[in-house]
């Protein structure tokens, strides 16, 4: 909120105002003292001298307003006293005559209004006559600033005294009130407009600023009209609005026109605006050239859109074709103002689109029409490569964002035929930022995309995220931004959810072809979710195997495509590719396709051998391979044997002893719980001897570890594995053997320094023993 200070010369203003306020304090004090002593004539004299301060020409509007406020606060005391006098039997008509003898016109008229107010309240004379008299008398002050404030005082004092019914001819009806206000309004508007033509031309800027500050006083007339309860729609249409509009057009002053047109929108209710669109909009076209018609129309549209949204659609009567009316009007305004800025034209269409979405959400053609008109204008003006940070660019962005934000379903945007043609007028950054905005909205709302046509349209809108484009900047994009954008595209893929698997296949397969065109830097983000959705699709096909006899072949085709897709990723992202192969192996295993499952598994192992060279990564990958393999069930003995052996060999070839030790122990499971198929039923291996071999080998490797803490830790872990297999019924493992291992560990522990690390190992060991003891007791009890 603005400070109560004027521009110009603030110090000077403060001083002048301070002095005036001091005088007001003094005179008002004396006035009140006289009132307290029932000396009305003296009180009026002091009131008059207080009011004389308002005769100044030195104060800026804001300072004058402060002075006016201080004085009108004091006049309330006088008014209250007068009312008390009336209640005691004093005749107000006498007083009304009396104050007219005050010497100077400004104090005289303020006093007259003050007494007049009580005169009306006293009901001594006809209300309408007194009001008419007051508004006529105010003509006596023709100095714009003083006149505006005097008339504002009149408006303030009479606020609750205006006749507001239609049937008291004598005392006054609402028509008298309308006439009273409109008379005052027309006089105030004249004073206000006249300010523009007073004084030196070089002070034009200051004058315009001061006029803008004073606009509120003129607008108060419209507020009064809107407060009359007897003014209903028909009276508004018949008597109120035409008169205001006539004043507006007639004054031929841009500042007044712009303000009053907006003021009408603000102070009268939406229900009235709906009924008066035609005369109002017609006036818009008749305004002075420099009037910001765009702003006026946008204010009106946005208010009606909000109104419709708030109340519900039925608030707009069916016979009022809001969209058509505004669309025509906008076309007329644009046509009649050839110098209108492009950004202003676009801004008008932004509002129109907003109106269409808020009021007619299911009429997509409305929005499309508006987009088309905008597009035609852009083409006519030969606007291309519009920067998103130019003013036209910002409006255009807004034009495209309104539908994204406005529709309940973001994907409705895809149905707008002219949406992408607007997008083409942007430069690269503009297109990209809109692509990101659209994508984010879809992701936020988690909207399923169910057909390839939809996907294709969407891809067209977000193409800057999918490929390199001819006009993109030559320097590398920020890596963080880039991977964030690609991450969004990746998440989008999970929203592809066609009803039928065949359609889903089409979406996945076609979109993969698109993603591949994105180049190495993009596919590492986008192809991974493509493969995952392919696997999901396999599961979907299996679930409809009863109704789709070709499901198995279709799955096979998906696997082949997936293998191909992963092979394109292998060199770029070996580790994720390995995981994709393993996931593929599990998926194929799940649908009982041994050949494919084996293929995926061997691809994973090959990739491990050829492309995973970091020793840490090797451990992680090998563990994954062993774990995946263990849980599969479709491999027959020949293939199973090959993979088992491969895993065991690879484990013993790891670089570090502890890794070897752990992985070899893990391989033991491949000889026990891993399942081998005979073509029908899978059975677990349960090869006790080979398990024992793995564990013994693991033990030997542990003993080769030089660090005694690590060695002990490994032996404790191995003891756990032994116990596990013992419990599972591996009869190669004897209690005696376990005891030897336990003694070995105990011996090791004695030689360890006590610290936090060894504490943990010891604790682990003791927990293991406790578990073993309990499970032995349990099995003996059984």
């Amino acid at each position, binding site marked *: *909120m*603005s*400070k*109560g200070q004027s521009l110009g010369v603030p110090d000077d203003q403060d001083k002048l105002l301070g002095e005036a306020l*001091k005088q007001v*304090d*003094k005179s008002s*004090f004396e006035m*009140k*003292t*006289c*009132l*307290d*002593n*029932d*000396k009305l004539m*003296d009180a009026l004299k002091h009131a008059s001298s207080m009011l004389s301060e308002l005769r100044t020409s030195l104060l800026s*509007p*804001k300072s004058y*307003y*402060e002075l*006016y*406020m*201080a004085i009108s*606060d004091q006049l*309330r*005391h006088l008014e*209250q*006293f007068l009312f*008390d006098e009336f209640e005691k039997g004093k005749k107000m008509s006498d007083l009304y005559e009396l104050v007219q003898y005050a010497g100077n016109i400004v104090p005289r008229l303020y006093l007259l209004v003050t007494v007049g107010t009580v005169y009306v309240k006293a009901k001594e004379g006809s209300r309408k006559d007194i009001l008419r008299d007051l508004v006529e008398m105010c003509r006596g002050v023709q100095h714009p600033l003083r006149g505006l404030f005097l008339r504002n005082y009149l408006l*303030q004092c009479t*606020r*609750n005294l205006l006749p507001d019914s239609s049937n008291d001819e004598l005392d006054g009806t609402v028509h008298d009130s309308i006439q009273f206000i409109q008379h005052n309004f027309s006089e105030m508007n004249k004073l206000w407009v006249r300010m523009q033509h007073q004084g030196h031309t070089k002070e034009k800027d200051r004058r315009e600023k001061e006029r*803008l*500050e*004073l*606009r*509120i*006083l003129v*607008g*108060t007339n419209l*507020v009064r009209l*809107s407060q009359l309860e007897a003014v209903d729609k028909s009276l508004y249409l018949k008597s109120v609005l035409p008169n205001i509009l006539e004043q507006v057009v007639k004054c031929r002053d841009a500042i007044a026109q712009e303000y009053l047109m907006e*003021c009408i929108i*603000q*102070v*009268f*209710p*939406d*229900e009235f605006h709906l009924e008066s669109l035609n005369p109002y909009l017609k006036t818009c076209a008749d305004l002075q050239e420099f009037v910001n018609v765009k702003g006026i129309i946008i204010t009106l549209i946005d208010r009606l859109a909000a*109104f419709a949204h708030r109340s519900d659609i039925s608030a707009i009567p069916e016979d009022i074709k809001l969209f058509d009316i505004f669309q025509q009007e906008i076309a007329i305004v644009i046509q009649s103002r050839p110098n209108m800025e492009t950004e202003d034209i676009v801004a008008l269409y932004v509002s129109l689109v907003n109106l269409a979405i808020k009021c007619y959400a299911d009429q997509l053609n409305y929005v499309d029409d508006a987009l088309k008109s905008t597009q035609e204008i852009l083409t006519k003006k030969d606007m291309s490569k519009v920067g998103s940070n130019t003013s036209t660019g910002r409006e255009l962005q807004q034009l495209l964002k309104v539908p994204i934000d406005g529709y309940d379903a973001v994907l409705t945007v895809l149905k707008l035929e002219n949406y992408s043609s607007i997008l083409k007028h942007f430069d690269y950054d503009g297109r990209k930022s809109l692509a990101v905005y659209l994508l984010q909205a879809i992701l936020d709302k988690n909207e399923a995309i169910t057909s390839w046509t939809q996907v294709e349209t969407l891809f067209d809108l977000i193409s800057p995220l999918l490929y390199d484009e001819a006009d993109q900047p030559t320097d590398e994009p920020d890596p963080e931004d880039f991977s964030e954008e690609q991450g969004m595209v990746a998440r989008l893929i999970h929203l592809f959810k066609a009803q039928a698997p065949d359609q889903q296949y089409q979406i996945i397969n076609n979109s993969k072809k698109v993603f591949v065109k994105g180049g190495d830097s993009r596919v590492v983000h986008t192809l991974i979710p493509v493969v995952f959705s392919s696997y999901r699709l396999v599961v979907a096909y299996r679930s409809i195997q009863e109704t789709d006899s070709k499901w198995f072949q279709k799955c096979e085709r998906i696997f082949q495509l997936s293998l191909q897709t992963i092979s394109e990723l292998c060199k770029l992202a070996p580790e994720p590719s390995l995981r994709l192969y393993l996931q593929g192996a599990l998926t194929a295993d799940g649908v009982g396709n041994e050949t494919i499952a084996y293929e995926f598994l061997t691809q994973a192992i090959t990739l491990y051998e050829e492309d995973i060279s970091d020793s840490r990564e090797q451990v992680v990958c090998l563990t994954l391979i062993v774990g995946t393999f263990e849980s599969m069930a479709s491999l027959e003995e020949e293939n199973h044997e090959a993979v088992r052996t491969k895993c065991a060999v690879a484990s013993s070839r790891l670089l570090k002893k502890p890794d070897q030790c752990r992985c070899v122990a893990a391989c033991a499971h491949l000889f026990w719980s891993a399942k081998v198929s005979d073509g029908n039923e899978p059975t677990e291996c349960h090869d006790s001897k080979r398990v024992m071999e793995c564990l013994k080998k693991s033990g030997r490797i542990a003993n080769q570890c030089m660090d005694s803490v690590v060695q002990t830790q490994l032996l404790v872990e191995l003891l756990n594995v032994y116990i596990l297999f013992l419990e599972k019924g591996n009869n190669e493992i004897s209690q005696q053997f376990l005891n030897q291992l336990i003694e070995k560990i105990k011996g090791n522990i004695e030689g360890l320094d006590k610290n936090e690390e060894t504490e943990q190992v010891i604790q682990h060991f003791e927990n293991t023993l406790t578990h073993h003891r309990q499970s032995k007791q349990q099995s003996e009890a059984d």
Partner: protein
Amino acid sequence: MSARRKVLLKVIILGDSGVGKTSLMNQYVNKKFTSQYKATIGADFLTKEVMVDDRLVTMQIWDTAGQERFQSLGVAFYRGADCCVLVYDVTNANTFKTLDSWRDEFLIQASPRDPENFPFVVIGNKIDLENRQVPARRAQNWCESKNNIPYYETSAKEAVNVDQAFQKIARDALAKENDDIYKPQVASVPDIRLDSNTKQKSGKCC
């Protein structure tokens, strides 16, 4: 006892656009409500006479524009206020968040003598609506943190609690007005010359 028995109290209603300031005032003064939305521009007042205990009080209630751009002449009308009412819409959390700045703005512009103890009343309006966003507890906490501002929840539409809130406003404003009387009203005017007939010395009394 002076001839001017009635006390004049000035009350300012502040808050964001659309929270129902005009509706509250109209409901209180005229016992009327309309669902038609008309934006308030500038500032305007209505008066109402009320009894506070056994005192007859005239309240001058200033309804203000919630949108700053409609106060083109500034806020000189804040001066001399006896109570400030801060209104928010319980279904719109933003209108609650801005209470802080409305309060600060008022204290800066009105510059009351004793800002710490200046009477405020907070009103959460539109409790007739269903989609409430600001819990009463949250509003109460805020009020407590600001030197225990009295808090009322109202519906201007259904006339719930409006009278009670304004009764409190009148009472607090009157208490403040009475306090002020003991301070020199016209300290800036040293050369007071009283009429020879005047026997009273106090600058302002009631």
